[in-house]
């Protein structure tokens, strides 16, 4: 189908983007790889699209604790970046699972997080690392921990007038990203993003609920069998067209077993 009619403005500066955001029915356009299909399918009908693609928000900066990555960094850039590969390999690994090459060339880190699709890769990654999301408005900047950012299905802590500007990723000693999909690049049936420091693990699942889900009970266990058992208290995955909730829980346990040795400390 064809998108409905809307106005378009290309923001030349963040200040201009904030001013435009005041207008009724305004929406931010970043890479557009989720927004434009939803326009084409007429699931969204904004009055004004504010294209922030030209704003200087795509830098990958090394920080003391890890990396600060601008919201407009594309999946392809994250996949190829040496800094990301070395300092936040979980993110680099996850980027390879996002859709297909042509989509990875345009889709962005910030766009994926701000949309908060529970089957998407990055929400689970930032949750596992408990990364910090930097939300800017015309007046102020807020820092929100990933575990406080996802509020519900496609719902986040972003307030009207705010733009997700960057994400601060801490380093982790060990990490692993795994995803099951029917074909490469398809929506995940279920996926796992895990990070560990010392004996502490944080294991998050995608495709397992209305938001990315932190498996707190499983993360606390030190033996795989107990962790797999505990997973039923962490996840009540919604069934999709092909997989029942029980199948998804089973597959989550399979991923947990595959990730377990990497996340556990060596004895």
């Amino acid at each position, binding site marked *: 189908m064809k998108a409905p009619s809307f106005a378009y*403005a290309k923001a030349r500066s963040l200040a201009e983007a904030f001013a435009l955001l005041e207008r009724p029915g305004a929406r931010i356009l970043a890479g557009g790889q989720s927004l434009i*299909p939803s326009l*084409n399918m007429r699931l969204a009908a904004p009055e004004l699209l504010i294209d922030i*693609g030209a704003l200087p928000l795509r830098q990958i900066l090394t920080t003391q604790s890890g990396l600060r990555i601008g919201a407009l960094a594309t999946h392809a850039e994250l996949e190829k970046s040496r800094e990301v590969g070395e300092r936040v390999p979980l993110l680099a690994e996850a980027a390879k699972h996002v859709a297909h*090459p*042509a989509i990875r060339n345009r889709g962005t880190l910030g766009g994926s997080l701000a949309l908060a699709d529970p089957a998407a890769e990055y929400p689970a990654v930032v949750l596992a690392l408990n990364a910090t999301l930097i939300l800017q408005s015309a007046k102020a900047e807020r820092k929100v921990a990933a575990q406080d950012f996802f509020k519900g299905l496609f719902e986040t802590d972003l307030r009207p007038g705010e733009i997700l500007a960057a994400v601060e990723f801490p380093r982790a000693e060990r990490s692993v990203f795994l995803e099951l999909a029917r*074909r*490469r690049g398809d929506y995940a049936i279920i996926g796992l993003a895990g990070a560990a420091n010392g004996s502490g693990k944080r294991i998050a699942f995608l495709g397992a609920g209305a938001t990315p889900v932190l498996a707190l009970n499983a993360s606390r266990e030190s033996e795989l069998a107990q962790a797999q058992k505990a997973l039923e208290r962490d996840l009540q995955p919604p069934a999709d067209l092909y997989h029942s909730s029980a199948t998804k829980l089973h597959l989550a346990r399979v991923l947990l077993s595959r990730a377990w040795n990497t996340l556990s400390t060596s004895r």
Partner: protein
Amino acid sequence: MEHALDITLTVNGTQVTRRVAPRVHLVDFLRDELGLTGSHIGCEHGVCGACTVRVNGEIVRGCLMLAVQADGCRVETVEGLSDSRELARLQQAFHEHNALQCGFCTPGMLMAAQDLLSRKATFTREQIREHISGNYCRCTGYQAIVDAIEEAMGADEGGHAHG
């Protein structure tokens, strides 16, 4: 804030200026405004890849980019790459292997495959399949397409002959 904007972009080496409505995506623009109907419109929501074009050297989904976003960009379509003979080897391999299936996906397949070939490395069949996974449509198999890409890659300068 306007409902029609003037854009200037380079398409297959030629600079064009047109007034477009923001809702028009790049492939509709290329097909309807410029008559470049080589890029196909399949699903219009980023699933089939038949609309794959190159923008500033990188492949993108033409249906997931607005024409106004291409203002100032360098756009290349299957017609441009065909005329410049960049696709010649790949086209020959597709021809020899009858790698068409229904043919609707072919322009996008060529664009995606050329993206891989331009990296001047050798890829396994698995990696080729992964790279064209965004161009799967409603046929199945894609064996002959993978065969053709593999052969074109082997014939590539700097690549390795196989078999």
